[in-house]
């Protein structure tokens, strides 16, 4: 397992890095509207009506953006949580913690891509 983790590290780092870069940039606008402005009633109702939301989301760019919004934060999150585990004297448990976290990110990523295809 340790050897396998070493082999995939560069790819994980790439996904993690894009989670930091693209994920952060996309999440800011997303949280501002979907997470805060809409629930607080600051957004007109038609803006996020099902028809409009689905039309936007099902467009090609919409699908790519939504996929990125799901996949990238998951890998950033999983990788950072692994580092956090190591920060708390977790070097020895890492061989168990890392695969679990990355499996969660992978499951979420697959579900996310399916969800985007399904739109």
């Amino acid at each position, binding site marked *: 397992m340790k050897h396998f983790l070493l082999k995939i590290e560069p790819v994980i780092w790439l996904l993690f890095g894009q989670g*930091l870069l693209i*994920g*952060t*940039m996309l999440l800011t606008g997303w949280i501002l509207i979907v*997470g805060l402005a809409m629930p607080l009633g600051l957004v007109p109702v038609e803006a996020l009506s099902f028809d409009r939301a689905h039309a936007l989301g099902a467009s090609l760019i919409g699908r790519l953006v939504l996929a990125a919004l799901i996949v990238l934060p998951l890998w950033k999150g999983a990788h950072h949580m692994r580092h956090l585990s190591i920060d708390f004297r977790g070097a020895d448990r890492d061989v168990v913690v890392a695969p679990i976290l990355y499996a969660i990110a992978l499951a979420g990523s697959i579900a996310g891509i399916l*969800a985007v295809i399904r739109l």
Partner: protein
Amino acid sequence: MAGPSHPDAMAPSRPGPTRTAPPQMPASWWSAPRIRTYLLFDATGLVYLLLGFVALEVVWALGAGPEAWDAMLASLRNPLVVAFHALGLASVIFVGVRFFSFFPKAQPPRIGPMKPPPAPVILGGLYVAWIGLTVLFAAILAGGIF
């Protein structure tokens, strides 16, 4: 006063009359301000993971039809969810500021024939992209464009 580091840090201690004492670190090491900021940075991983799963739920509901979508919007109005997203926003901004400040120095001086632009240009470009993308995305989501 001092606490232990990982017993194998740098090298395990040798036994015998010339034995070394195990590696240690000052008691205040983990509570230093910079280290605490760093630990907070790593801890935002949990927030990002949850944000990813919430986004997954939203997209799943969008694909499930109008009733599921309206139910999703209703659950997003839950005060706890709103509070989580407020924490999410703070985390994302904290991560962005810290990561972007480090990003320029992480670019190799050359990849093949290509050189990166000077650090201030990279930093400025990152913020322009961040703010621009945020404004654009928010405008689209809030109904201002398209």
